[in-house]
C-alpha cells in the first residue's frame, strides 16, 4: 500500500489548475504567472512519477502500489488505484510531452488562463484514467477526461467545425453511456466495484456477455478515429492550430487505445476474443484509408494527424493479436512516439506562425532560412518514420514482426500504411527544405529561440537513451 502517491498524480495537476484559474487578471502578470504555475505543476508531477518508478518492481507485470478508497455506501462502491510499468511509462510520456509543450508554447496565446486551466485539468484526469485499477474509477476518468477536452476544442477549435463538434460529442456520449451500463452490470453481478484484471472472470451468459463487452469496446472505439467514424475526430483535430490543444486532441485516441490494452489481453473472454479479426480488419481499412488520404492532402497538420492515427492503429492491431507479450513493447514505443509527435506538432506550429507573421503564401523552402528548425524537424520526422535512434525503432520492429508472424497479409497491409504515411511526411519535409520553391527571399529571426532549441535537443537525448535502455531513468 503506497501513501497516496498515485492520488497525488491526479491531485497535483488539479491543484495547479485551481491556482491557474485564480491567477490575477492582470495582462502584464497573469499570463506569466499561469505559465509558471503549469510548468512547476508538471515538474512536480514528473518528479513524482520518477519517484513512483523507483518504488516499482520493474519485472512485475501486475498492478503495484495499489491504493483503496471508500467512495459511497449506497450502493457500496470502493475505488482502487494502481500502476504497472506500462501505465507509468504512458503517464511519464504524457506529462513530459505537456512539459515540453509548456516550455515551447508562445506566451502570447489568447485566453491563456482557459488554456492552462483546462490543460492541467485534462492532465490530472488522464493521469487518473491511467492509474485506475477498478472498472468504476476507470469509467469516471474515461468520461471526465472528455470535459476539459470539450472546453479546449470549443475555445480553440475552428468555428466552421461547430456542427462536427456536436456530432462528435454525442458520439462520445453514446460510448460513455454504453460503458456505464456495461460497468454497472459488471459491478451489480459482484455487488461491488471490481478490479480491472478481474473483469474477464465474470460469468455472463450469451447475449449479456456480448452486450457488455461490445459496449466496452464501442466506448473505446468512440475515442479512436476508426472508419466510418474517423471523419469527426480528424476534422476536429486537423482544425486545431494551437499546438497544446492539438496535443490534447492527439491524446484522445490514446485514451481509447489504453482502454483496449487494459481490457483485451488476458481479460476478455475467449468467446469475445475469437472476433478479434473483425477489429483487425477495421483497423487495417482505416489505416490504409487515412494513409492514402494523407498522401493527397496538402496540409502538413493533417499529415501529422494521419501519422499519429496510423501508429495508434498499429498499436491497436497488435493488442488484438493472440499474445500478451507485446504490452511492454507497446509501452516503450508509445513513450518515444508521444514525445516525437509533441515536438513535431510544436515545430509545425512554429513554421506556421512564422509564415503568418511574415505574410508568406506558402511554406515551400522555408526551412532553408531556419537552420535550427530544419535540423530538429528533419531529425524528428526521421525518428518518427523509423530511424534507429529511439526506442520506437526496436519496439515497432518487434510489434510488426509479431503481426507478420500472425498473418502475412495483415503484416503487408500494416507495412504499406506505415510506408505511405512516412512518404507523406517525408514529402512534406522535402517541400519545406526545397530551396527552389522558396517563396521567402529572406526569413531573418524566424528560427527557433534558444530555449526551444535546447528543449528539442534534450528530447532527442531522452529518446536516444531510450534506444539503448528504455527505462534508463529508473534508478
Amino acid at each position, binding site marked *: 500500500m503506497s501513501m497516496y502517491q498515485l492520488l497525488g498524480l491526479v491531485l497535483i495537476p488539479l491543484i495547479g489548475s485551481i491556482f491557474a484559474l485564480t491567477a490575477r487578471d492582470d495582462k502584464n502578470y497573469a499570463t506569466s504567472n499561469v505559465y509558471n504555475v503549469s510548468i512547476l505543476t508538471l515538474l512536480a508531477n514528473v518528479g513524482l512519477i520518477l519517484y513512483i518508478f523507483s518504488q516499482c518492481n520493474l519485472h512485475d507485470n501486475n498492478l503495484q502500489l495499489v491504493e483503496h478508497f*471508500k*467512495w*459511497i*455506501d*449506497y*450502493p457500496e462502491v470502493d475505488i482502487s488505484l494502481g500502476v504497472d510499468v506500462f501505465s507509468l511509462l504512458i503517464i511519464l510520456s504524457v506529462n513530459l510531452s505537456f512539459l515540453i509543450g509548456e516550455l515551447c508554447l508562445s506566451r502570447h496565446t489568447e*485566453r491563456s*488562463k*482557459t488554456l492552462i486551466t483546462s490543460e492541467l485539468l485534462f492532465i490530472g484526469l488522464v493521469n487518473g484514467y491511467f492509474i485506475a485499477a477498478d472498472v468504476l474509477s476507470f*469509467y*469516471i*476518468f474515461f*468520461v*471526465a477526461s*472528455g*470535459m476539459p477536452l*470539450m*472546453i479546449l476544442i*470549443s*475555445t480553440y477549435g475552428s*468555428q466552421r467545425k*461547430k456542427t462536427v*463538434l*456536436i456530432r462528435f*460529442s*454525442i458520439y462520445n*456520449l*453514446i460510448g*460513455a*453511456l454504453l460503458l*456505464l*451500463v456495461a460497468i*454497472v*452490470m459488471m*459491478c*451489480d453481478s459482484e455487488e461491488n466495484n471490481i478490479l480491472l484484471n478481474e473483469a474477464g472472470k465474470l460469468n455472463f451468459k450469451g447475449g449479456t456477455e456480448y452486450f457488455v463487452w461490445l459496449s466496452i469496446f464501442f466506448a473505446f472505439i468512440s475515442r479512436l478515429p476508426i472508419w466510418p467514424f474517423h471523419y469527426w475526430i480528424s476534422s476536429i483535430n486537423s482544425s486545431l492550430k494551437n499546438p497544446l490543444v492539438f496535443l490534447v486532441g492527439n491524446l484522445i485516441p490514446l485514451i481509447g487505445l489504453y482502454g483496449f490494452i487494459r481490457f483485451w489481453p488476458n481479460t476478455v473472454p475467449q468467446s469475445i476474443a475469437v472476433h478479434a479479426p473483425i477489429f483487425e480488419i477495421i483497423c487495417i481499412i482505416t489505416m490504409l484509408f487515412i494513409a492514402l488520404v494523407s498522401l493527397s492532402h496538402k496540409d502538413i497538420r493533417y499529415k501529422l494527424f494521419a501519422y499519429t492515427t496510423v501508429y495508434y492503429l498499429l498499436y491497436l492491431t497488435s493488442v488484438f493479436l493472440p499474445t500478451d507479450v507485446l504490452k511492454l513493447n507497446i509501452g516503450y514505443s508509445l513513450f518515444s512516439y508521444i514525445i516525437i509527435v509533441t515536438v513535431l506538432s510544436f515545430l509545425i506550429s512554429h513554421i506556421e506562425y512564422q509564415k503568418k507573421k511574415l505574410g508568406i503564401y506558402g511554406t515551400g523552402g522555408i526551412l532553408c532560412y531556419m537552420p535550427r528548425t530544419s535540423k530538429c524537424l528533419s531529425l524528428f520526422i526521421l525518428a518518427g518514420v523509423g530511424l534507429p535512434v529511439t526506442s520506437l525503432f526496436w519496439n515497432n520492429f518487434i510489434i510488426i514482426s509479431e503481426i507478420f508472424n500472425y498473418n502475412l497479409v495483415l503484416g503487408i497491409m500494416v507495412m504499406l500504411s506505415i510506408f505511405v504515411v512516412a512518404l507523406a511526411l517525408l514529402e512534406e519535409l522535402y517541400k519545406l527544405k526545397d530551396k527552389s520553391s522558396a517563396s521567402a527571399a529572406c526569413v531573418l529571426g524566424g528560427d527557433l529561440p534558444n530555449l526551444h532549441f535546447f528543449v528539442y535537443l534534450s528530447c532527442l537525448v531522452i529518446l536516444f537513451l531510450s534506444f539503448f535502455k528504455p527505462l534508463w531513468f529508473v534508478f
Partner: protein
Amino acid sequence: MIWEHIRYALPEASLIIGILHLFFMYLLSYDSAKIYARIARFWLLVSLFWAVAWQEKSFSPLYFTNDAYTLLFNLCIGFLAYIMIGLASTWFSTENKTGCKYYILILSSLIGINLLLSSSNLVALLFCYILLTYTHYRLLGISYEKLPSEAASRYMGVSAMVVIIFAAGFGYLNSYEDGNVEFTALRELFLNAPQSLPLYLSAVAIIIPFLYSLGLAPFHIIAEDKTGKGILPVSHYFALIAPLAFWGCFIKLNVELFKPLSAELSPVYQGFALLSVIFGAMGANARINLHRILSYSSMYHFGIVLILLSFFKSETNFAAFVYLFVYIISLNGSYLVFYSLKSHGEYLSSVTSLSGLAETRAYTTGALLVSLFSFIGLPPLVGFLGQLNAVSELLKREYYISLGIILFFLLILSKAYLDIIKTAYFEHKIKIYDSENKSVMMYTLFSVICIVLIAFNPQDLFAIMKDMFDVVNL
C-alpha cells in the same frame, strides 16, 4: 398544553411573523429590496432553527407529523430559498422594485410547504395543496408590466380543475372511512378493503394533482408557463423549490399511503415516467428560451425520479431522492448563471443571448458548462451519482427497455445542452453584458464547488441523508 402546541408551531409562526414584519416595513414605505430580502431571510433562518429544534414535534399531531424526513426536505428547501431570496434582491434592485409582495408570497409558500410535507391526514393535505396553489397563482401574477399575466389566469383555471379532482378523491375516501382520513387509516383501507374501481380512482385522484404540480407528462399543460413566463425570481422558485416540496410530499404519500396499491400503480407510473422522459427531451430541443429548455429538462429528469419511485422499494425511493437532490443542485447552478446574464439592465433568457458569452465571461460560461455537464451525468460531477444510482437500480430490476429509452432520450436532451454550449463558445458576441454582481458570483462559485466536490466524497452526506430519509420507510 396549549403553550406546547404554540411552541411546536414556531417554525410556521416565525414565517408568519416574517410576513407581518415585511408588511409593516411596507407600510413604513421602505423602498430598498435588500432590506426586504434581509428580513425574509432572517425569518426563514429563525423558522429553520425552530424546525431543527422541534424536529419531531408538531403543533397538531392529528393532522401534521414532523420527523427527520420532513426536516430533510425542509432544510433542503430552506437552503435553496435562502439563496433564492438573496439573489431575488439583486433582481428587484435592478428593476427598481422593492419585491415586498414577492417575499411575502415566498414566505407564505414556505408555510404551505412546511405544512404540506408534514401532513399526515388527507384533510390537511388538501388544505395545504389549495393554499400552495393559491400562493403559486399570486406568484405567477407578479408581472411588473413586462410579462402577460394570462399565464396566471390559465394556471388558476387548470389548477381549479385539479383541485376539484383532488377534492372528489378526498370526498369519496372521507365518506368511505366516516371521516377518518388519516394516512395510517387509509393505508389499512387500501391494504384490506376489497379492490374496487372507485377506491382505485380515488387514489388516482389524489395522485393526479401531484403529477400535475410536478409537471410530469401528460399533466404538463402549465409546467412550461410556470418557469418560462414568470419573472426570474419566480421562475427560480417554480424550477427548484416547488418541485422539491411536491416530490417530498409525493414520496411520502407513496410510502405511507399508496404502497398497498403498488401493483396497480407501478405500470401507470412507469408509463407516465417514460412519457415524461420522451416529451422532456423532445421539448427541450424545440425551445429557444433557456427557462423553457430547463423546464423540459426537468420533465425528463423528473420522469426518471418517477420511474424509480414506481418500484415502491426503500432502496429505489432513496435512489430517486439522490437523483432529485443532485439534479436540483445542478439546476440551481444554472439558475445562478441566469442572474449574471444581464445586458443594459435587462435580464436575458434566450439561447441566442448567450452568443459569445465565453469571450467575455469565461467563469460564468464555465459555471454553466459544469451544471449542464452535471445534468448529463458526466463524472466527476454530482449528476453522475444520480445517474449511477438510477442505472444501477434499473439494471438490478432488469428494466432494460426503460433504461434504453432513458439513455436514448438523454442523448437527444444532450443535443439541447450542447446547443447552449455551442452558442456560448462558438457564436460571435452580439450583446454587451453588464458587470457581474459580486454576490451572484460568490453564489455561483459556491454552487460550482458543490457540484464538483459532493461527488468526490459523498458518503458522509449521503449517510446522513439516508438516515433521515429512511424514517419514512420505517
